[in-house]
Each structure stands twice: as structure tokens, then as C-alpha cells.
């Protein structure tokens, strides 16, 4: 190849790479991204059954119950406006507790949020950014931020 052609080939290869990356990413994001909802969003019907989603809010005080199998827990997530029941099979994370912020990953099924993963605040100052406004609204920021 002549140097001039070589450059042309390289530049077009780079452009193709960028294009391919963008197209692949768009295709993947369209099908795989999961939306974040609060209980209020769920009540208003934003989350479709079976679609990957995340649910965030406070774990309502006194709402955690254990099933007889010992590893399934149920609790209620609230954002102060609405509540959503959550069911989760597994060991809850280290920092999960009532009155604290939590994010559940999973999907809605018949009015209950079935969680695959539960994220709780990880750092003493950490709070899922989505909950930032919530905390301010409900004066629960103290317990969250400690």
C-alpha cells in the first residue's frame, strides 16, 4: 500500500470501528437496560410485568418477614407516596436494614417485585443517587447519611 492509501484505509477502519461500537451498543442498550422505579412509579403502572427493572426506596419499619424456608424474605419498600411489596430469596447484604435505603434489582410479577439482587448502602456515606431527593423530602436523610 502507498502511504496515502494506507492512511485512508486506517482512517476508514477507525470510523467503521466507531460506528460498529455505537450500533452494537445501541442495539444492546435498547434490549438490556433496566429502568429505575420508585413505588410511586410502580403504582402508576410504569413497570411492565417481567421486564428487568430496579426498585428503590426505604425499607419500611417493621415490614421485614421471613418465610418458613428461612431464606426467603418479604419486605415493603416505600417512597412516602406509595408502597411496593418485595420478595427476595437469598442472604440480604451487610448493610440492609429497616428504615434504610435499598435498591432491588429484578422484575415486577403480579404486583410484587421479585428481586434477584438487593443493594444497600455500601459506604457509610453512600446512598443510591436516585434516593438523594427522596431522603431530603422525607427527612430520613439523617439515618441514611449518618
Amino acid at each position, binding site marked *: *500500500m*502507498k*502511504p496515502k492509501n*494506507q*492512511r485512508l484505509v*486506517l482512517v476508514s*477502519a*477507525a470510523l*467503521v*470501528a*466507531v460506528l*460498529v*461500537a*455505537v450500533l*452494537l*451498543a*445501541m*442495539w*444492546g*442498550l435498547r434490549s*438490556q*437496560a*433496566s*429502568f*429505575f*422505579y420508585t413505588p410511586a412509579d410502580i403504582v402508576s403502572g410504569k413497570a411492565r410485568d417481567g421486564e*428487568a427493572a*430496579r426498585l428503590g426506596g426505604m425499607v419500611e419499619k417493621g415490614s421485614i418477614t*421471613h418465610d418458613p*424456608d*428461612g*431464606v426467603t424474605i418479604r419486605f415493603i419498600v416505600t417512597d412516602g407516596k406509595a408502597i411496593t411489596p418485595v420478595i427476595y*430469596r*437469598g*442472604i*440480604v447484604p*451487610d*448493610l440492609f436494614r429497616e428504615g434504610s435505603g435499598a*435498591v432491588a*434489582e429484578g422484575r415486577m410479577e403480579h404486583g410484587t417485585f421479585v428481586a434477584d439482587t438487593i*443493594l444497600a448502602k*455500601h*459506604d*457509610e*456515606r*453512600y*446512598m*443510591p*443517587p*436516585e434516593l*438523594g431527593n427522596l431522603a431530603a423530602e422525607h427527612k430520613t436523610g439523617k439515618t441514611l*447519611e*449518618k
Partner: protein
Amino acid sequence: MIAEAGLAALWLAAGLAAYQFLLMILALRSNLEVARPMRAVAVVQGGLTLVAFAMLLLVFARSDMSVALVFENSHSAKPFIYKVAGAWGNHEGSMLMWVTILAVAGAFLALFSRRTTERTLIAGLGSQAVLALGFYAFLLFASNPFARLFPAPMDGQGLNPLLQDPGLAFHPPTLYLGYVGLSVAFSLAVGALLTGEVDSRLARAMRPWVLGAWILLTLGITAGSYWAYYELGWGGYWFWDPVENASLMPWLAATALLHSMNVLAARGALKAWTMMLAVIAFSMSMVGTFLVRSGILTSVHAFAIDPQRGTFLLVLLAIYVGAAFTLFALRGASLKEGAPFELVSRESGLVVNNLILSVILGIVFLGTLYPLFVEALSGEKLSVGAPYFNAVAGPLALILAVLVGVGPLLSWRSERRLIFRQLRIPALLGLSALVITMILAPDIHILPRLGFVVAAYLIAAAVLPLVGRNPLRAPLATWGMVLAHLGIAVGLTGMAANAAFSSERLGIAKPGDTLSVGPWLVQLEGVTPTAGKNFTAVEAELRATRGEGAVILNPQTHYYSDPPTETNESAIRTFWNGQLYTVIGKSDASGGWQLRLWWKPFVTLIWAGGALIAMGGALALLGRIWRRRRLSSGEWRRKGYA
């Protein structure tokens, strides 16, 4: 006084960085004589940041609660090692560590770089000073680590017990060294673009820095992955968490740079391309820092939102990246391309490598930032996780792994032999892996199956560059390459085995009960209370058997009082063919305990692969340094990349 001394050192260092920048401008506009003090200034600047960082370590070691940062992040009851490590386990401290490494890297560049022309070095040091200057401003105006509290509180607020771990002590510094090592490649590239001296000498000057940074990033990512694996107790080794992606993106760019740099060093080709990658690699480091430090993305690691800091970092990022790309746009086109090469040649092979790595980088970048774009544009909140990254980047990574076996067999400039003949044995191995997994494990998912196939092929293909020659006479760099490529095959085997054959068991057990997982029978012998230095704990005694002899595992749950938290400490037992991973959860009213058990066949190969890749890098680095000593520069040039 200690804190004030640290702050003063920081101000002085910032002043020197400004002076260094001024020197560069004057030198490039008039003559190089002006910049004679440049090297000395860079060294003193590096020394001052070391002083500032030492002062920070000292206030943490002494638990000086009158310093706000110590009060917020430390506690007098903490073990000493974690008091010291706590210095960089928080926002301000880690930013100070970042700028310290940046300035010290500049000092080392000033002391040891003899490969580029004086002009390019001065421009590079000026660029390094500008980088440091921005971060000094960030520390001094938006995140002063030495701010005092009055009156001084009695004791600190502690540190998250999850972060009281040897992982914390070494993981961030390793990653930061890697991130910031790339700053030197960035600065040298900017310097060379300013002076127009983009040539193979520049590539050789960059090489040890990129190689060193890349080794540390590889180690940092591997160690971080293992840390998350045993510490989080979730049994996973990679979560596609934004913070993990923040370290993966610079690694991908550095890997591409590492390969294209060799083309520039050996053949003088791919000039503009390599400069662009050098700019991108450090830009990715800064993007990573921005993502982690601004807490802008939802992440299990993210810190509290602080708009002021986030904005500051974003502006810095925009200025640096914008300036570098503008410079590139102005100068890149005027660079003369070096020696031509044909379509089938090692150069082309490395271009393909770079293209695929860039596409993967783009995919990770878009996936990580997509939630941010969407929220900014529509206010909708969403997250992008493993399903996206695995489905989109996974197949590309497999294709790349196939090509890894081909590239090193090609010769420079033009390849006219039929290299596919050499690949007969690897291809045969891959095929047999396909047949064997089809027969023995017909139900596994397509991606892990392809993983086995590619890994089997690559294990043989990776060593081909050593076949047909006396391996003892092969250069160390070749050995390094072979080892690193083998590491890919080993890691891939581990990932495929983990994805295909892991078994998990979640259950509740009373003392005496037995649960089964994979080939194992695990009996809960009992649960006893115990205590550590700053926590109380319960410890389970698990007796695991599979046919012959039994092993005892002791997973724990720790309870900390300051702040009140609990952590699950997994107990892991490693065997030659896998790991038994056990976690104890909560107890229920009837005296049963939650147990989570995994049998993960060959999972350790994942990190062994990472370690091999890093070792390959280390061998290559050693080889370069050793050869450079031995060969005169003329001989070096003739032999080129080996």
C-alpha cells in the same frame, strides 16, 4: 502543625507546577536554554507532593481528630494498618494520592528520560505540570484534605468495616499508579504533537511507562476482582459496576496502546493512531476518576453526591481532553506516516487488535455512561448491567482471543507464507474442546462453550512464537508476550468453567443438618460467638466432604459498633479443581442459620490468568530494560521489535 505543613507543601508544589508550565511556553517560543531549570523544578515539585502525602499519613497514624478528614474517616480503636490505609480510603486523601503520583511520575520522567529530544521532553514535562496544576486546584479549592475542626472532637466517626481489609491497603494505590502512569504517555504524546517529533524514539520513551502502568492496572483489576469475590460474599468476580468499568476502560485503551506503540517503535508507522490512543488512555483514567470521585452513577462503591466537586472534575476533564484532542486535530494530519505495510502483515494484525479493543472500549464506555445521558435528557433513571456487557462485549472479546493466536505469527511489512498451517494443532484442540463439551455437557450456554473452545485453541496457539526456534535465545519480550497471551487462555478457561459448572445452594440449617452443593456434602457442626479487635462475631463450623476426607470451613458474620454494621466474611477453600465458597447469613427464630454455598470448578484460573498476563508484562518490561543496557541504540534500532 503537621496538617499545616502538608498544606504549605501542596501550595508550593502548585506554584512550581505553574512555573514549570511557564518555562515550557517560554522554551517552545524562544530557545531551550530558558528551560534549563525544568528538570530540577519537576523533581522538587514531586518531592513536595511526597511531603504533603507523608503529612497526611502522619495525621492519620496519630489519629489527630482535629483534622476534619481524620475525624470523618478514622477512629482511635481501629487497627494501626487501617488507620494509615484510611488516609487514602476517602475522597480527599485519594485525590492527594493521585496528584502525588502524578507529580512523582513527572519527577521520574525528568530524572530518567534520555530517549526523546530535549525539546519534546520539555513540552512533555510542561504538559505533566498542567495536568498536576488542575488537580492541585481541585485539592486546594474543592477538597482540602488538611482542613481543621474546632473544637477538636473526642473521637472519629470510624471507617466502613467493609473497607477494613488488606484489599483497601493495596488496591487503590495499585490502580492509581496505573492510571497515573498513563499520564506520562499522555504528556509525552502531547509534547511530541507540540514539537512534531512523533517517531520511534518517542515510542521507546513511552514504552516503559505504558508497560509499567498496564502491568499495575492488570494487577489492580485482578486483585480488585478477587477482593470483590471474597469480600462481598456474592460469589461473583465481576459485576460490571461503574467503578469496575472505570478501571477496565483505561486498561482496554492501554492494552491497545501497548500494541500500537510497538508498531511505532519498530516500524515508525501508526503515528497519529498511537498518539490518539495515548491521549485516550489517560482520558479514560480521568473519566474513571470522575465517575468514582463524583459519585455521579449508582454504584455499590459510589460516594455521596457532591455537585461542586463533580462539576470541578468534569470541567477539568473537559479542558484536558478537549485541549488534547484539539491539538491532535491540528497536528495529527500533518504527521507523516511511516514505513508502509501490506494488508496481511503484523502491522495489520495489530491494527485489527486495536480496532477490536477500541470497539470493546466504546461499548463499555457507552454502557457505563448511557444512564447518565438518559437521565440528563429525559429524567428517566435506568441502569445497565451484566446482560448488556456480556451479550455485546463478550462475543467481540472471543473473536479477539482467536486473533491473539494469529497476530504474533505474522511478519512485519508483508506476510506471504500460509500461516494457517501452523495453526492446525491449535484448531484441532479447539475442535476437540467443542466435541468434548458437546458430549459431556450438552446443556451449557453458548458463550461458556465457545469460551472453552477458544481457550483450548489459544493455549496451543499462544506458544507458537516460541516453536521452531531455540526458546532460550528468544528475547524476554517474546516470552512476555507468550505468557500474557497464555494468561488470556487460562483466564478464559476459568470464566467459562465458572459460568458453565458452578453450583449454588441456599438453605437453612440447624447444627447437625447437612446441605449438598455440587459434589460436596456440607454439615453445620455448630455456631459459636467470637470476637476480633474491633468487632464481635459469630462463627460457623462447617464440615465438608466429598467421598474422601473432610475439610473444615469457618465463615463468619462480623458486627461492628462504630458505625453499627455487619459484614459476612466468606470462608473459601481452594482445591486443585475449584473452590468451595461458604457464607453464613442470619439466624431464624427456631435456631436455624442461613447458609449460602457454592462449588466453583476452576474459578481460580480467572485470577491466575490475570496474574500471568501481568507477569508477561513484567517480563517484557525487564527484557526492554535489560536489552537497552546491552545494546547500543543503533543495534537496538536494527533489531526492532522482537
